[in-house]
């Protein structure tokens, strides 16, 4: 185990708690941004943080999504001093439910093009709002600026097929920030995973210290 990986696992309880609180604030912001677009309340859960070696990651994610028959994924990479991957995983049927929620009443039932394209675009748009607002707020709280790759979307795949082991660099350590969400209307639920590698660790630790110093 290299020095950086070891230091990751040595995150103190206080650092983990600060990160959880910041994630809580950031996802609260993104839920609020989304609620302005879709007329629903997003029910939030207490965020969870786990530090693990990257090869453990697909198994961990699969364990959380296996209750869904199929899943849709929106993935965006982000980079600044804080960098990593955001994976937004939706339960089966979420794309179609979101189409209904986003279409205004006067457009409902009108031909708006092939459903699979519309579903992909809807998931991309919702994913972009949730990920952008959450990662953006997180970066703002830690005095960073991040940029994003365009979102990648996988629609209605078996979870075994969608989450593959070859996806991440096995040499890295991942900090997984997980938040569950449930839309009160429309039967949409899922998880947001932020996976950041050990390259961001030193910066992250310093940024957490600066954040909490405001409240000392």
């Amino acid at each position, binding site marked *: 185990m290299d020095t950086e990986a070891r230091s990751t696992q040595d995150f103190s309880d*206080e650092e983990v*708690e*600060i990160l*959880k*609180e910041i994630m*809580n*604030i*950031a*996802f*609260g*912001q993104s*839920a*609020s941004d989304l*609620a302005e677009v879709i007329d629903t*309340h*997003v029910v*939030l*859960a*207490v965020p969870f943080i786990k530090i693990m070696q990257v090869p453990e990651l697909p198994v961990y994610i699969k364990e959380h999504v296996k209750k869904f028959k199929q899943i849709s994924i929106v993935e965006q990479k982000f980079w600044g001093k804080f960098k990593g991957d955001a994976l937004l995983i939706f339960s089966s049927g979420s794309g179609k439910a979101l189409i209904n929620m986003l279409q205004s009443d006067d457009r409902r039932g009108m031909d708006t093009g092939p459903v699979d394209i519309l579903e992909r675009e809807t998931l991309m748009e919702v994913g972009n709002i949730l990920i952008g607002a959450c990662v953006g707020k997180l970066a703002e*709280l830690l005095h960073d600026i991040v940029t994003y790759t365009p979102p990648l979307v996988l629609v209605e795949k078996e979870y075994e097929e969608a989450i593959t082991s070859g996806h991440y660099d096995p040499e890295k350590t991942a900090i997984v920030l997980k938040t569950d969400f449930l839309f*009160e209307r429309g039967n949409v639920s899922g998880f947001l995973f932020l996976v950041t590698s050990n390259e961001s660790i030193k910066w992250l630790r310093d940024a957490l210290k600066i954040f*909490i110093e405001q*409240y*000392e």
Partner: protein
Amino acid sequence: MIKKILIVDDSPIARKMLKSCLPKDQGYEFHEAVDGKEGCEKYTRIRPDITFMDLTMPVMTGYEAIEEIVKNDINALIIVVTADVQMKAIKRVLDLGAYMVLKKPLKREEIQSALLKAQDTLQKAE
């Protein structure tokens, strides 16, 4: 006069952040609870002048705790401190009887102005 303050939040960091924003020279007596259930129990036992309440908590949410507290004490002054700033969440807690809602992360000026307002409300009630 505000004397007893109850802070209900599952996050020790959030409780610490909140306490740090409160004036140090007022001789407040602080009590803390880690979820809504413990918050209700401590409320009944302590009868705080003000309760700061998070919403997203394990065991019992802030929504449930507000409902329970207000059911037993219609004059409870509950200030919701939350990251969930969706309009529906704010409306729901105000409908349940919360006194006001503050958004995380907290700012000292907002907390102090909320305390002044609560102080005023308490004095009018006396």
